[in-house]
């Protein structure tokens, strides 16, 4: 009897562990979703890591770019330009939590694109950026 209870408890423990570490989505899923979105734009020819890299560093308005907070190396820890708060690495290779929750991804693109570009980013820009980030190694 005791053994049954014990193994049952153990099983529950393992299950909750598995649930905790499993992410809702993978960066690949999110890239695929962006590709579907971008495909509806006429002339779409796929994503490019090179374009993503220049987008990441390009300062268009307000003297701001992604790299202002996430630093030139997306695998490094960043710092909030305003508050100085530490920002965990942007590249999935250095931070497995990145790009694993579509809701979170949408939230941060909406906020940060508006801060940096005064507008939302296009699916092309988001896809290029993620393609670049996925090429970054630790």
């Amino acid at each position, binding site marked *: 009897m005791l053994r049954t209870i014990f193994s049952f408890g153990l099983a529950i423990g393992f299950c909750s562990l598995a649930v905790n570490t499993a992410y809702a989505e993978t960066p690949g899923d999110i890239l695929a979703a962006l590709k579907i979105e971008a495909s509806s734009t006429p002339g779409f020819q796929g994503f490019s890591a090179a374009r993503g890299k220049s987008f990441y560093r390009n300062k268009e308005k307000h003297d701001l770019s992604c790299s202002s907070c996430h630093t030139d190396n997306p695998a490094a820890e960043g710092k*909030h330009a305003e*508050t*100085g708060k530490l920002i965990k690495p942007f590249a999935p290779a250095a931070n497995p939590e990145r790009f694993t929750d579509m*809701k979170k991804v949408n939230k941060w693109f*909406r906020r940060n694109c508006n801060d940096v570009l005064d507008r939302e980013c296009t699916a092309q820009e988001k896809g290029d950026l993620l393609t670049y980030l996925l090429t970054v190694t630790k």
Partner: protein
Amino acid sequence: MMINTRKFSRALAMGVMVMVAMMYVAHVSNARADDDDDEDTGHRPAIVDAKWASECSACHVAYPARYLPADSWRAIMAGLDKHFGSNASLDPATAREITAYLEKNASTRRHHAGKPVLRITETRWWRSEHREIAARHWKNPKVKSRADCEACHTTADKGDFSERHVKFPR
């Protein structure tokens, strides 16, 4: 056997009573230690909203609800798309939940009627609490701004702003 059981339960009851008494004493002395002659106990409310804790700490330390009145929080939450120079907008359901939490735990101190204060550092309470802080601390590059509580309040991220955890950076 009967006597043993009775003895045992009496001992157990005594033990529990002693434990409760000790916990009470610890609680009271803790509350006294935190008394910085203001209403602030230095600690988070018993129930912390999980969305408030994660969303409001993404870019800065999560400023406790008790440091601003409810109308200030309502004004802040209504203008998240232009939040002190950053877009901090939330989905409507999350914003509603956080606003309700902030309202419920807001400061009940009397405050001036008129335009709600949007910065904790502009409240009379905050200014009075910090009036003895020397200018050199504010000029220290490690103190990003007056909003950078964590620079000196080393346990601010846990909602604990009590004086005994203040350490000025060098």
